[in-house]
C-alpha cells in the first residue's frame, strides 16, 4: 500500500508526494492493541470513577499511581542493562563496563545451551555455546561470572534462563557461600518462571509439572533462607514478544503467576509470606499511552487480586513491582538508528508508568548481540531520561488525565475479560495443557504481520519511508569469539574428568532421592554444585525422577547408574 507515499532516494523532489505527506494524517485511530479511541476525553469520561477506590494516591492501595508515595524522589529506578555474551569471563567484562559507565544493576542472560539445561559438551551445543548469552556449566563458571562484584551491595538479576532457574539459584548460592556471604543478606532477583519458557523455544526442557515443581522449590527455599531476594520474576515480556496485545500480556502473565501462587499455598505457605517477593518483567511496546495505561492497570489488578482473591493483609504483598524490557520485536534492522528513537519513547513510557528497574534495548538488537557502543548508548538513554528531562520529579504525572485514566480502565476491563475466559477453560494450567495458549500466540503473531503487510500499522523504514537495504551496521557488529566457545567446551570436559567422582555420585544420588520423595531440591542442588556437578547433571537427574528423559533432546543418557554405584562419566 505504501508505494505512493514512499520516499524517492535520489533525484528531484516529487511535489505530488510532498503534498501527500503535507496533508497526511493518522490513518488509524486505534491503539496498538486495536482499541478505538475517541477524538478527545473530557470529565464526562470519568463520571463513575471513585478516585480513592479505583485510583488513589501513589503508595496507597490499589497502587494504580505507583507503589511508593514519592516514587523517584526516593531513588531513581535501577538502570539495569541485560548482559550476556560468550564465556562467563567475557560477560563479566561487559558487565563491569556497564557499571563503570553508571549502570546500577546487572541482569545477565544465558545462551540457548544453558537455557535448555545442557552442558557445553552436549553434541548439539557445539555450534551454539555463548552465541546468545553466557554459558554456565559449573560452580567455576558462576565464580568467573561473579568475579569481584560485591554480591551484598549490587542488585543482581541473575540469568534469564527460567528453565534452569533452580540450578542457577543453587550455583549462585554455592558461590556466595564459598565467598563467605551470609545468603540471607543477598539482594537481587532471579527470573524464575519456568512455565513461560515453554513459549520461548524450550518446550522439551520445561514440562508443566516440572516447571511448577522447580519454580516453586526456588520460591519456597528463598522464602525461608533469602528474605531480601526477589525470587519470582514472572516474565510477561517474553509472552508479549510473541505478538500478543497489551491486555493479553497482563492476563496471561497473571494466569501464570497464579499457577505458582496456588502451588505455594498448597505447600502450606501464607500469601503474605511470599507475595512481597513476586516481581514482574513487563514489555514496553511502541504505543506510548497504551503501555502506560497497561502498567497502571496491572498495578491496580494485582493489588485487587492479591487482596480480594488471596486474602493478603500486608500491603507489600499487593504491590506490583516490575522491571521493563523495552520491546525487542518493535525494533527493525531497516534504518537501524531509528531504533534509538523507538527505545527512547518506550523507556519514557516505562518511567512515566513508575518502573522499578529498566533495561533499554540497544539499537542493534535486531541485528546482533549488543555491541559495547550499543550498550553504552542504551544506558545513556536511561541516564538522559533520569537526569535531564525532569520527568522524575512527580509521581504518576499522567494520573488524572481523562484519556490515560480511561485507557487504564479499558486495559483492566479487557484483561479481566481474558482472565475470565481462561478461568472458564479451567484455569491457566488447563489453557496450557490444551494448547489454547499456543493458539492465542500463533493467531496474534499472524495478525501482527498482516497489519504490517496491509499497512494497517505503519512502521518507518519497513512499510513507509523505506530506503535501500543497508550494507553496514552503523556502530559495528558484535561477534562472539569462537575461542571463548571452544574453551568453554574444553573446560567442561576437563572438569568432568578431574573432579572427585565419588562425591559427585553421592551428591547426585541425594538430589535424585529428594526429587523422588518430592522434597525441595534446592539444598541438594547446592551441595551437588559445590562438588562440581554440572548444569545438565542437576537438571537431568530431576527430570528422570519425574519420569522424563535425562536429556531434553533425548540424545544423551544419564551418566549415573544408581543401581551399581557407577557413573559412566568415570573413565
Amino acid at each position: 500500500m505504501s508505494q505512493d507515499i514512499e520516499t524517492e532516494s535520489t533525484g528531484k523532489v516529487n511535489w505530488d508526494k510532498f503534498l501527500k505527506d503535507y496533508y497526511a494524517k493518522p490513518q488509524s485511530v486505534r491503539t496498538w492493541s486495536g482499541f478505538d479511541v475517541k477524538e478527545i476525553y473530557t470529565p464526562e469520561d470519568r463520571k463513575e470513577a471513585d478516585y480513592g477506590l479505583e485510583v488513589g494516591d501513589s503508595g496507597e492501595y490499589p497502587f494504580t499511581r505507583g507503589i511508593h508515595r514519592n516514587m523517584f524522589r526516593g531513588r531513581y529506578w535501577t538502570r539495569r542493562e541485560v548482559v550476556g555474551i560468550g564465556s562467563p569471563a567475557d560477560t563479566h567484562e561487559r558487565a563491569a563496563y556497564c557499571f563503570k559507565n553508571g549502570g546500577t544493576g546487572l541482569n545477565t542472560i544465558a545462551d540457548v545451551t544453558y537455557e535448555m539445561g545442557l552442558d557445553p559438551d552436549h553434541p548439539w551445543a557445539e555450534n551454539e555455546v555463548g552465541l546468545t548469552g553466557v554459558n554456565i556449566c559449573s560452580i567455576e563458571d558462576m565464580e568467573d561470572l561473579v568475579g569481584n562484584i560485591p554480591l551484598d551491595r549490587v542488585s543482581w538479576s541473575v540469568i534469564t534462563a527460567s528453565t534452569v532457574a533452580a540450578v542457577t539459584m543453587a550455583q549462585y548460592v554455592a558461590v556466595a557461600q564459598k565467598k563467605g556471604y551470609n545468603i540471607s543478606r543477598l539482594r537481587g532477583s532471579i527470573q524464575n518462571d519456568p512455565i513461560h519458557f515453554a513459549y520461548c523455544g524450550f518446550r522439551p526442557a520445561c514440562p508443566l509439572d516440572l516447571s511448577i515443581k522447580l519454580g516453586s522449590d526456588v520460591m519456597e527455599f528463598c522464602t525461608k533462607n533469602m528474605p531480601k531476594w526477589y525470587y519470582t520474576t514472572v516474565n510477561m515480556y517474553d509472552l508479549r514478544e510473541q505478538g500478543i496485545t497489551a491486555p493479553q500480556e497482563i492476563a496471561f502473565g497473571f494466569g501464570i503467576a497464579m499457577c505458582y501462587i496456588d502451588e505455594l499455598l498448597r505447600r502450606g505457605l501464607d500469601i503474605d509470606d511470599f507475595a512481597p517477593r513476586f516481581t514482574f518483567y513487563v514489555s514496553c511496546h511502541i504505543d506510548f499511552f497504551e503501555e502506560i495505561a497497561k502498567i497502571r492497570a496491572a498495578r491496580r489488578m494485582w493489588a485487587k487480586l492479591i487482596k480480594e482473591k488471596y486474602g493478603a493483609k500486608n500491603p507489600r504483598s499487593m504491590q506490583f513491582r516490575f522491571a521493563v524490557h523495552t520491546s525487542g520485536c518493535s525494533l527493525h534492522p531497516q534504518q537501524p538508528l531509528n531504533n534509538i528513537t523507538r527505545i527512547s519513547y518506550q523507556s519514557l513510557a516505562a518511567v512515566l508508568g513508575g518502573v522499578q528497574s529498566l533495561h533499554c534495548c540497544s539499537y542493534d538488537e535486531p541485528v546482533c548481540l549488543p555491541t559495547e557502543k550499543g550498550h553504552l548508548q542504551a544506558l545513556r538513554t536511561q541516564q538522559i531520561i533520569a537526569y535531564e528531562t525532569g520527568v522524575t520529579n512527580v509521581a504518576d504525572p499522567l494520573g488524572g488525565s481523562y484519556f490515560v485514566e480511561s485507557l487504564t480502565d479499558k486495559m483492566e476491563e479487557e484483561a479481566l475479560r481474558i482472565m475470565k475466559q481462561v478461568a472458564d477453560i479451567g484455569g491457566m494450567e488447563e489453557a496450557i495443557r490444551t494448547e489454547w495458549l499456543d493458539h492465542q500466540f500463533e493467531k496474534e503473531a499472524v495478525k501482527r504481520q498482516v497489519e504490517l503487510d496491509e499497512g494497517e500499522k505503519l512502521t518507518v523504514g519497513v512499510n513507509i519511508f523505506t530506503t535501500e537495504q543497508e550494507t553496514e551496521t552503523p556502530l559495528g557488529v558484535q561477534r562472539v569469539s569462537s575461542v571463548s566457545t571452544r574453551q568453554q567446551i574444553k573446560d567442561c570436559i576437563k572438569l568432568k574428568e578431574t573432579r572427585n567422582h565419588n562425591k559427585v555420585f553421592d551428591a547426585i544420588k541425594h538430589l535424585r532421592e529428594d526429587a523422588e520423595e518430592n522434597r525441595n531440591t534446592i539444598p541438594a542442588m547446592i551441595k551437588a554444585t559445590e562438588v562440581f556437578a554440572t548444569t545438565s547433571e542437576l537438571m537431568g537427574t530431576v527430570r528422570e525422577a519425574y519420569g522424563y528423559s535425562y536429556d531434553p533432546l533425548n540424545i544423551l543418557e544419564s551418566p549415573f547408574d544408581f543401581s551399581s554405584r557407577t557413573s559412566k562419566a568415570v573413565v
Partner: protein
Amino acid sequence: MSDKKIKVIISKIGLDGHDRGAKVVANLLRKAGMEVIYLGMFQTVEGIVKAVVDEDADVIGISYLSGEHLMFTPLVKAEMEKWGLDDVLFVVGGSFPPEDIPPMIEMGVDKVFRGGTLTDDMVAYIKANVRQKE
C-alpha cells in the same frame, strides 16, 4: 501442470527457539497458495534436507535468530549438494547483520529476508525464482 502448488519446507535448526517468525511465514505462504511444511524446532541439517528430498519440495527456508547463520548455512548447502538439490530454492530469514548477507549469498543462499520483510515481496520472489516443474 503449470498450476501445481509450490512446495516449501520451512525449518528452525539446532537449538535456536525463536519460532514466531518461522510459523508466521509458514502460515502466510500457505495463505498465498503454497504448500508449506513447517518442520518445527530442533531440526538437524540432515533431517531438513532429507525432508526436502522426501517431499520433493521446491523451496527450503531456514530461520535463524541466534547468530548461528554463518555456522549452519554452509552445512545446509553441502547437504543439499550431496543430494543433488541444485534446483531447489534456498532462502533464509531472521535476524543478522547486513554485513553477513553477502557471505550467505556466497555460501549458496539464493535470497536472504531480514525481519521487516513484507509478505508480498517474499511471495513474489519465490514465484519468480522457483524452478519450473515439468
